[in-house]
């Protein structure tokens, strides 16, 4: 039990010593991505191998006791970042770390013999780019070009061990806040740091805390929004999985600062791993006395609760989220009163997102000035992004605010997959917009991208090449928001439906030019009239593609053409007579008898009958069938 400051310091020292006593640590990435590629199996194999092999011993606490054999720890870490190259494994001996990628079960024995027992590096498992093979993870451009604050521990230590978190200085920030600062000083420090809400809103965190602290009502709550619903975003999930203690420490500091005794984390149901890691963290903290009554012998008590979402995107909205925790339908309500005045159970509530809380411990430890030295004047600090889509290096990244898209997509992301041409990047998910070539050098922060009908949002970044149809992208997002609209207010419920109908018509080749004006009119109406942020921002994907890719909309409508060849209804299957051998295989496979011809002579497709199923193209052995845009 840790009941005093001295005991906390002692526990941190012990934990530090423990880590030093490992001769080698095998760090297996245990983020959602790597688990999917089989990292838990790799973890089990390593644990078994270490137990069975002479010369090494599997240990959980290497301090004390004599070790004739090498003390080896096998650990499950948070996301190491490079999701696509999983399972990822790091072999750590003191400061020396080897990063292995795509580790298969058969490789484990080799790694143990050569890199754990010996000091050899296995070349075939290293990350390679061009001619270079990288040994240390920090040297890989994807990682070297990032600045990691929130993600600093992710991938470096056991996400399920409180001791490992404490060895990295965990709970020093809470200690400093509680014993070296007054509550107001904590709030002032966060305020001065300029930290802004990382969920997408960008509201100043310190200001929010101040507003809660000055409420008359003494029952207050701290709530964490872990309902990361934007499709294509997994930053918050990675933090909850990879460094759950840091998130909880941030929430505890908030709780101390605003005199709240209960903290709630609302996690979306699709993140079972996040829920499991947070539950584990809370249990460990309660066992050691760091959560509960009279923390570190003070008068501050704090209890943590987890609520699982149930599949409603709108619950990412503040008032809908608190309604859901209360056991109600997750529907937003009109504001004011705002969450800071009447939030959870009508009590003053600090509601921040995962990444925001995870920034707090370091701000308290290193100070507001340090935080302000990173990022831009209006948006200090770093931002995490999940980099996905048609890009070479998909994965989880963190960069200073003000970084440009060019740095993110080309320097860190390695450019487009297979060297394809860049078309656009969608940021901010269903509430965001598309940025193109001309925006590649715009510094990204909360304010700068707003002028281009886009938002930074929570940090989902989907890169698109020339084979992506922008009208279809707009339709895709509109169908998402339409489906997720809670139905409470008419502008959003009906407006998104009408916009979706129009977009569906256009991608089916039945659009009219007037449709574009109607779309814009509806968009403006929803933006001004909808009740909550979800509704207000729903038209953005349409508006931003309309502004930048209007010619593609017009092509769909006037020429009935989709240049990305993505819209099925606008595809035209044609047989190239030069390649066709007249084997009749396409005709035999056509489900609607749209193909005719004479054997050994080129066949033809009747486009009036064709249902564009693609069976002919799939079955042609001579690549004679192609799609005409």
């Amino acid at each position, binding site marked *: 039990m840790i009941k005093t400051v001295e005991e906390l310091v002692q526990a941190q020292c012990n934990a530090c010593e423990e880590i030093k006593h490992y001769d080698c640590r095998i760090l297996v990435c245990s983020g959602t991505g790597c688990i999917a590629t089989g990292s838990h199996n790799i973890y089990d194999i390593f644990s078994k191998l270490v137990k069975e092999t002479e010369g090494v011993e599997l240990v959980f606490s290497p301090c004390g006791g004599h070790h004739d054999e090498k003390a080896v720890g096998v650990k499950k870490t948070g996301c190491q970042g490079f999701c696509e190259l999983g399972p990822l494994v790091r072999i750590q001996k003191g400061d020396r770390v080897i990063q292995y990628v795509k580790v298969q079960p058969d490789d484990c024995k080799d790694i143990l013999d050569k890199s754990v027992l010996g000091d050899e590096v296995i070349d075939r498992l290293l990350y390679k780019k061009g001619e270079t093979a990288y040994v240390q993870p920090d040297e890989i451009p994807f990682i070297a070009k990032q600045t990691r604050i929130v993600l600093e521990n992710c991938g470096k230590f056991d996400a399920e061990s409180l001791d490992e978190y404490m060895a990295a200085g965990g709970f020093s920030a809470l200690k400093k806040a509680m014993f070296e600062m007054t509550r107001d000083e904590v709030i002032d420090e966060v305020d001065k740091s300029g930290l802004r809400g990382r969920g997408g809103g960008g509201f100043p965190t310190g200001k929010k805390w101040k507003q809660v602290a000055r409420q008359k009502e003494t029952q207050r709550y701290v709530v964490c929004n872990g309902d990361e619903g934007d*499709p294509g975003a997994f930053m918050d999930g990675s933090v909850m999985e990879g460094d759950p203690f840091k998130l909880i420490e941030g929430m505890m500091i908030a709780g101390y600062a605003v005199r709240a005794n209960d903290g709630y984390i609302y996690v979306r149901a699709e993140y079972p791993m996040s829920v499991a890691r947070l539950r584990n963290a809370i249990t460990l903290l309660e066992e050691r006395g760091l959560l509960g009554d009279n923390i570190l012998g003070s008068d501050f008590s704090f209890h943590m609760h987890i609520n699982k979402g149930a599949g409603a995107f709108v619950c990412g909205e503040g008032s809908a989220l608190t309604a859901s925790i209360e056991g109600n339908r997750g529907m937003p309500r009109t504001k004011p009163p705002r969450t800071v005045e009447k939030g959870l159970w009508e009590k003053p509530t600090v509601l921040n997102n995962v990444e925001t809380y995870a920034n707090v411990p370091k701000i308290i430890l290193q100070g507001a000035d340090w935080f302000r030295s990173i990022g831009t004047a209006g948006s200090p600090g770093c931002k995490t992004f*999940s980099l996905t*889509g048609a890009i070479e290096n998909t994965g989880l990244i963190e960069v200073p605010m003000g970084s440009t898209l060019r740095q993110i997509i080309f320097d860190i992301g390695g450019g487009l997959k297979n060297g394809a041409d860049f078309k656009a990047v969608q940021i901010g998910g269903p509430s965001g917009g598309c940025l193109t070539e001309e925006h590649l050098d715009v510094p990204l922060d909360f304010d700068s991208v707003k002028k281009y009908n886009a938002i930074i949002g929570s940090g989902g970044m989907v890169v698109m090449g020339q084979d992506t149809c922008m009208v279809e992208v707009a339709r895709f997002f509109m169908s998402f928001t339409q489906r997720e609209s809670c139905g409470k207010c008419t502008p959003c419920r009906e407006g998104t439906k009408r916009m979706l109908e129009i977009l569906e018509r256009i991608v089916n080749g039945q659009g009219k030019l007037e449709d574009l004006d109607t779309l814009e009119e509806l968009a403006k109406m929803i933006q001004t009239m909808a009740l909550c942020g979800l509704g207000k921002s729903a038209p953005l994907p349409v508006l931003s593609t309309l502004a930048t890719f209007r010619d593609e909309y017009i092509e769909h409508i006037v020429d009935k053409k989709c240049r990305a060849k993505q819209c099925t209804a606008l595809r035209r299957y044609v047989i190239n007579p030069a390649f066709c051998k007249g084997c009749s295989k396409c005709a035999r496979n056509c489900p609607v008898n749209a193909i005719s011809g004479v054997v050994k002579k080129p066949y033809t497709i009747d486009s009036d009958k064709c249902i564009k199923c693609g069976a002919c193209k799939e079955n042609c052995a001579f690549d004679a069938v192609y799609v005409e845009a």
Partner: protein
Amino acid sequence: MLDESYYRKTDEIIARYGKEPKALIPVMQDVQAEYRYLPGELLSYIAKQIGITETKAYSVATFYENFSFEAKGKYVIKVCDGTACHVRHSTPVLEALWKELGLSKKKHTTDDMMFTVETVSCLGACGLAPTMMVNDQVHPSMTPEKALALIEELRRNG
């Protein structure tokens, strides 16, 4: 009529969260986890036990996409149709599964109660798009062929 054991199990679950209105969602989640769906009779029972009206319980249960009044298959397959998966061609995966299992947008569960196919907006494994989840396990980098091979494997396992 449900067997008595269902009610005893539900009592057990309610005891975890307390007989309070705020327990509604977690209780429904655990009941659904137990039976792979939310039997209507149990919803009425839960409402009574935690002190809310049946209407209220029903309104909450129907609001959230995760709750289902219909029994689901042994394997619940969620094909991710998030942005990252969508641009990396998740639709053909979904269509292949539908075709193989005789399912559609309207019909989600096979008659033998083996498979349920649904879509989901994001599984958070976007780096490995397109993905799909079978019960709680995420499968990376799917193709129609890989999806069909997986179905074969699950069928063999029974």
